């Protein structure tokens, strides 16, 4: 066949799925091309034959054993068919399975890392407090001494800023804007108490 495009159109035209415009073009082409005309005639004959199946007369004896024979045939074919499918799909399934397993493994690793233990994170404040808590344990003396060291460090920080500036900040707008309702309420209560006393 020299005209693959018209070959497709002929097939579509016989199925009734070609547009009116194409059908007209095809008719013009068939008038000129003997090969395509022959192909069209051949396909048309096959279609006509196929649409008129010959009625086969079978005895009642044939139909009586039909189901049993069909079952037997299917049973004998099944393993072979399954094997064929597995052979055909084998590698495809293997690769798909491997991809799914890999995705599952990566997902698990990701989820595990999401809830990773704090102890392993050197940047985690909670991890640091955890370690300190574990080291202090139930040792009250150690805890007291450590607390006093922290408080003295805090004192040093306060000295650094100076007493005057510590109170001057209340004049700025930022401090009031950043307080929560709960904190503002508390400041108000305390101020009211101060005024009364």
């Amino acid at each position: 066949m020299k005209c693959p495009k018209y070959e497709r159109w002929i097939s579509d035209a016989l199925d009734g799925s070609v547009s009116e415009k194409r059908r007209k073009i095809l008719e013009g082409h068939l008038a000129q091309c003997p090969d395509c005309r022959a192909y069209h005639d051949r396909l048309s004959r096959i279609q006509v034959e196929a649409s008129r199946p010959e009625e086969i007369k079978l005895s009642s004896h044939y139909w009586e054993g039909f189901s049993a024979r069909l079952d037997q045939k299917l049973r004998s074919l099944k393993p072979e068919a399954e094997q064929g499918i597995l052979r055909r799909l084998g590698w495809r399934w293997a690769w798909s399975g491997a991809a799914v397993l890999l995705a599952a493994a990566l997902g698990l690793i990701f989820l595990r890392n999401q809830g990773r233990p704090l102890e392993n994170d050197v940047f985690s404040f909670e991890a640091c407090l955890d370690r300190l808590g574990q080291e202090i344990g139930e040792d009250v003396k150690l805890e007291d001494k450590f607390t006093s060291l922290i408080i003295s460090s805090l004192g040093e920080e306060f000295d650094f800023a100076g007493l005057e500036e510590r109170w001057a900040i209340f004049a700025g707008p930022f401090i009031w804007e950043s307080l929560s309702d709960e904190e503002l309420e508390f400041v108000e209560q305390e101020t009211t108490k101060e005024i009364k006393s």
Partner: protein
Amino acid sequence: MRTKRCVGFLMGFVFLGSLVFAQMPGERMIGRERLRENINRLRLLRMTEVLALTEEQTAKIYPAYYRVEKEKMELMKRLNSEIREVKDLLAGPEVKKEGIGPKIKAVKELRRSLVEKEQEFEDFLEQNLSDVQKAKYLVFSVEFYRSLGDKLKRARVVSRERGGA
């Protein structure tokens, strides 16, 4: 000057924050909680200084810090209570198997919530710091935690000396 103003601002906030904490209804601050709070204050002061936070940054970061810290304190209290209950279940000659499963689940859940809270603040901080400040924050964190370890070592030496004397 800017840093000093920020530190001043922060200290005011820290001061107010401590008053609010002290107001927690019907709850007396126990030693470990107080220690945690003091470490938090020290961390904030040092962080403000090291990162040279602006007033605007401080005004954003500190309320968020206190909010997350308060939520973490609540989680810690619940976690401690759950652990005490697990200890009770394990105490005695015969282990009380009933109820252990849900307790383990609760402890794990609270621990996961703590990690999430910490991450929440870290994410917030990330959004409000410049790249240089982010880098400084990483170095600051490691050094601050190391300094706490050093303080604990010093405290151990002193308490041992006093204990021996």
